[in-house]
């Protein structure tokens, strides 16, 4: 648990905790049985992420990643958001302990799933 100051700060005061009543898209990754779970809600307007919220069942790294990821993605276009990776989230947090890189740093993946969910809905609506 040798976390960076940034991780500790985001863990202690996580941004964007919660869900939305009418999200444009929802993504969830992980399983409580064997790892962390992160769920991300987004609203999209004019092809931009207007808002993002997360909920995490997981360790400090997982919670800080959810917080950081939702912060980073706000205001980004869909393409920009899809370019956000777990590695970039970890980097923005000042790094994560090696053991945490793969199991607790799934926020970007949850975000991508939320975007996919949004895009699938769009396609459905257009159809």
């Amino acid at each position, binding site marked *: *648990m040798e*976390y960076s100051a940034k991780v*500790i700060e985001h*863990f*202690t005061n*996580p941004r964007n*905790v919660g869900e939305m009543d009418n999200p444009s898209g929802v993504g*969830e990754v992980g399983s*409580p*049985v*064997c*790892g*962390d*779970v*992160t*769920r991300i809600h987004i609203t999209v307007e004019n092809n931009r992420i207007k808002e993002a919220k997360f*909920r*995490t*069942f*997981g*360790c*400090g790294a*997982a*919670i800080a990643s959810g917080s950081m990821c939702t912060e980073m993605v706000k205001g980004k276009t869909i393409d920009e958001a899809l370019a956000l990776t777990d590695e970039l989230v970890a980097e923005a947090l000042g790094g994560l*302990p090696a*053991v945490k890189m793969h*199991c*607790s740093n799934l926020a970007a993946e949850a975000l991508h799933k939320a975007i996919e969910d949004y895009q699938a809905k769009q396609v459905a609506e257009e159809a």
Partner: protein
Amino acid sequence: MKQVYLDHGATTPVNPDVAAAMIACLQDHFGNPSSLHGFGRDAKQFLDEARTNVAALIGAHPEEIIFTSGGTEADNMAILGVARAMRKKGNHVITSAVEHHAVLDTCLALQKEGFEITVLPVDAYGQVHIDDFERALREETVLVTIMHANNEVGTIQPIKEIARMAKAKGIIVHTDAVQSVGKIPVDVNELGVDLLSVSAHKIYGPKGIGCLYVRKGTKMLPLMYGGGQERQRRPGTENMPGIVGFGVAAAIAARELPAEMDRLTKLRDRLIAGLLALPAVRLNGHPTERVSINVNACFHYIEGEALLLALDMRGIAASSGSACSAGSMDPSYVLLAMGIPPEIARGSLRLTLGRGTTAEQIDYVLGVIAEITEKLRAMSPLYNPNKG
């Protein structure tokens, strides 16, 4: 910030009298007890005195105490030493599913050496059942190693009954008493065991020293070879500051045990009651047959490390699972063995009390936990406040 240490199961602060004795040893008594001259004889006296104090704590003879580098070495010495020495007689060893890694991993190593290991299951409280034990006994059983008190949930095992049954069949019995010595009365003859492991740093002594009690006449191979120290059973220049500290810690533990056990049992039960008054909490381990220092609970919908970290941010030191496996993401194998579902086991918190713990601290910690768990649950995708 207020600091509250509730991780006495991981390690304890060094008692000031222990530290003082170690300082004197370091500064004024540096001799090698094997040396023939005055400096050596001086050291030898300290060695003998410490051995007497440690022996007295567990009702043993001083010659039955072998100093080791800690509980881990004591466990390894007992298990590998006896099993390897008895191999011709039989190749079956019995242990339990909730042992410390120092026992479990050592049994697995024996398995690679050709031994057969029976790992006894435990019930929902973490206790081994004596009838399971009886069924596991075989003609080829040479060693039973079952802990006295569990490090994660504090549950006390029926060692006396196990030892009686095993001894009737001539089987050697080892118990890891690292978590019971100093917490409940431990007497090697009362328990009827042949080998018993102790670690100093769990009883306000220094880290890196412990002992194995070995009943007279017990056959075992050494783990290491070299000088003739410890009656040829454990070579190497003795860890004199550690041994001296262990001796003082043992003397203090023996003296203070009855009063401390009483005091801590009350505090423990106050803490348990306070936790169970919070929503979606379950107590792990036996409600009464547990050591006085141990509280272990699961907080549904919360992951243990996040809980630890949040407590740490508030100056409260606790643990989740055993200290050694902390940092890993796996739920505690002890809780799983007790039948707790993994997603719930992952939300476990161990609070272990000790000499410095006060009622005020307990109440403070309860308040903080109420706050933190509420906050973490609000963050958890598993938590549905409507369902509770």
